[in-house]
């Protein structure tokens, strides 16, 4: 199977790119919420900003799980094929480790807002 360097780099960095996407979303959401005055708004009794953040974090975690599964399948294929070249195996392992880092960063990212609230 042909693999381009772009897709390989995407696999390696994918976990943290998902984190970066969540970070960007949070930054924009916070900036708009504070600038446009809807930081404390609620929908059905739930704060709009925490709700948005949690939903985005859940989506990010789902993305991470998908990526980890993909990396695991790649790793299994490498083991099965007993290929001499280890690039795919290293990439699969590194991708999973990066996803783990990203999962910690995402949990750590959302927690303070849930604890300390959404004050501007």
């Amino acid at each position, binding site marked *: 199977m042909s693999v381009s360097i772009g897709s390989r780099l995407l696999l390696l960095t994918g976990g943290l790119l998902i984190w970066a996407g969540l970070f960007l979303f949070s930054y924009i959401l916070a900036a708009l919420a504070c600038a446009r005055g809807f930081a404390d708004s609620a929908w059905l009794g739930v704060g709009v900003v925490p709700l948005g953040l949690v939903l985005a974090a859940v989506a990010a975690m789902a993305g991470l799980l998908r990526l980890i599964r993909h990396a695991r399948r790649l790793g299994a294929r490498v083991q099965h094929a007993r290929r001499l070249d280890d*690039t795919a195996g290293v990439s699969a392992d590194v991708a999973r480790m990066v996803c783990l880092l990203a999962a910690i960063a995402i949990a750590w990212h959302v927690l303070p807002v849930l604890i300390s609230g959404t004050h501007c």
Partner: protein
Amino acid sequence: MQRETQSLSRLRKAAPNSLPRPDGELEALERAWAPPKGWRRLSAVNNTQVGLWYIGAALLFMLLAGLLALMMRTQLALPQNDLIGPTLYNQLFTMHGTVMMFLFAVPVVEAMAVYILPAMLGARDLPFPRLSAYALWAYLIGGLMFFGTLFFDAAPSGGWFMYPPLTSYEYSRGIGADFWLLGIGFIEISAIAGAIELIVGTLRTRAPGMSLGKMPIYAWTMLVVGAMIVFGFPPVIAATLLLEIERAFQWPFFIAARGGDPLLWQHLFWLFGHPEVYIIFLPAAGMISTMVPALARTGLVGYRWVVAALIGVGILSLGLWAHHMFATGIPQLSLNFFSAASMAVAIPTGMQIFAWIATLWRGNVQRSTPTWFLLAFFASFVFGGLTGVMLAVVPYDWQVHDTYFVVAHLHYVLIGGMVFPLFAALYYWAPLVYGRKLSERIGTWACALMFSGFTVAFLPMHLTGLLGMPRRVHTYQAGLGWDALNLVSTLGAFTLASGIALVFVDLALSSRRTRPERPNVWHAGSLEWLPQGAYGVRSIPRVEGQYPLWDNPALAPEVQSGQHYLPGTATGARETIVTSPIDASPQYLLLVAGPSWLPLLAGAGTAAFFLFLTVKLMLPAALGGVIALVACWLWLWQTDRGPVHAPVDIGGGITLPVYASGSVGHSWWAMVVLLLVSGTILSALVFAFYYYWTIAPGPWPPAPDTLPAWPWPAAAALLCAGSARLLRRARQALDRHAHRGLRAHLGIAALTSLSAWMIAIHGQWQAGSLATAHAFDASVYALLSYQGLFVAVVLIMAAYLLARSLAGVLDGIRRVSFEVCRLFWLYTLWQGVFVLAVIYGSAALAGAT
């Protein structure tokens, strides 16, 4: 891919080339790579020469900035000292920080990579040696001129991060701030040139078989650092452009009274500034990951974890910028995210530290000077990292913000995290230059003096800061509890300096006892310890593991005797093998550029252009610009030589072409990286555009009628699309060898691109929008001006391609120049459409148009 697999299967066969080698093969290789002699040596471009000069220049700037630090410490040794006045003191701390960060720390890590990386990858040189030489000369000449401003009372004085409004035209009327903005702006460009070289070099010139999974950690590090420079440096280039434009033409980007915001500068600056800390630290970490296994005589523990940690630090560090802005009053909601990210980045950093400790624990550590410096690194960097976590806690940061606690922290991180590893590296890799180790005795004394001096200087500063002493004050009252602490810090600073001076004495003494051979004194496993000449390695090794010299103890004699790939010069010129980016399968033979005066001329011209522009000497500035442009033109003209030789046999049954175009070619890759840089600068400008929206107290845009009616941007966008279509036709004409058609389509496409930009800017002008009126208008004009810059480059490229076509050196086969220019051109056109969409589309979304 099938071809790649076939090549890999060939790689697994033993001994790509047989013995004995033909007579004269080695002599021909030596002739091709013979360095220029005498004063012509300045025209050398190969990485072993340029890398050494680059390292020397960076160390020179470290010494100069260190002298400034000693002057400041002397001033602060006693309370109410009047040795140095406040004006000079302001210049001293600004220049110290600026020179250390921009002229020492980043250049030295790039310089080390320029010197070491090709040898470590098994390449004969980097893919663009003249680009490295250009980066060196632009940096050295520009840096010296910038430092010289101190002697003419023209040095900047706004601190190394140059916050407006202090640095705006109103409060800093001299040319000091302009020197900083233009000087640093173009030094950043030099750093980006270096990054492009390192990224393409790492991905495309690895020895056959050195797949990503076998790549040395140092190469992984430089790949991550290169990417960080690509995404981290553009915001500060955008920021310096905006502030210089504000100072020169009064476009109010940072003037609150006209819709601007000084905090925008802080955002853009720290979007660069925080990744920069890791851009400085990660190469040092890469060096440590190389030195620790060699010194401990065992492989690095957790190779894959360390790669993951490097990627983790690289990406997480891009989300920390506002942790330098906790005290600015940005919303608490946002502070949460930055505080969390600041703490999260400690995890991958810690992973690397544990990997190094585990390696040392597992191995049998050699007691030597590099080991002592590494131990100094562990002690100081871990301490600095922990105070960093303390500063990531928002209330704590509020307490110590802008105090000496922060000064202590940043020096612990930077000296601990970069200077100690750098000095370990100097001692570790010195045998590659001198043919022997530096003096163990002097090195041990130097390390002891440096570490004790560093601790005595900076440990008390934590207390000084906690006791309330602010940074950047030129003196203080006696009796505030700071007197003894400052005196101790000054004594420590001089002790640290004496240790550094001792290292330079050692380097000077050793340079008189140089040996020609390069012994593997540490019994290391990486390729830079192979026997090397001016040509690099005699034959390019086949790599089978992460530590090739440990995996195959016979590799050095095999390579030396010419048994591996390309055991000589196939074309009579300088060459290296270009391999595929993932599996490092040989793809083609790159003809490496040889000595030339053009990079030196281009570098000097670029430096002259920027610096004369700063002092408003327009004629010399224009002359510098023309020299730079002509030199670059001539330089590029020589690079696209076409298939000057039939495909060559490099051994092991592999035959490689000597020319490649399209996405296989290394130039195409360099252009892609450059476009990523361009896109990131554009993103920074778009960030500024939207930033004004979030802070606008009233409607946004403030005066909707200053945006032109829709036909203007629509016409401009259509012309962009038309130009792209014409480029496609030009490419088809090139395929058919239809030269007239090629020239006609290129010419019309250039005029169409220019017309699109002129229509966009005319529409804006006709609507009555003035860039000086409001930050919104200024940001619109900034986006259009940025596009204008690209259109200007496109016009030069079009002229270049037309000239090549007329000269008969552009055709369906010899086409790299066309492919690369076309890529830039297409990007420019799509950037034009995007800019129009941002300006007019988003204003419409905001309900204003």
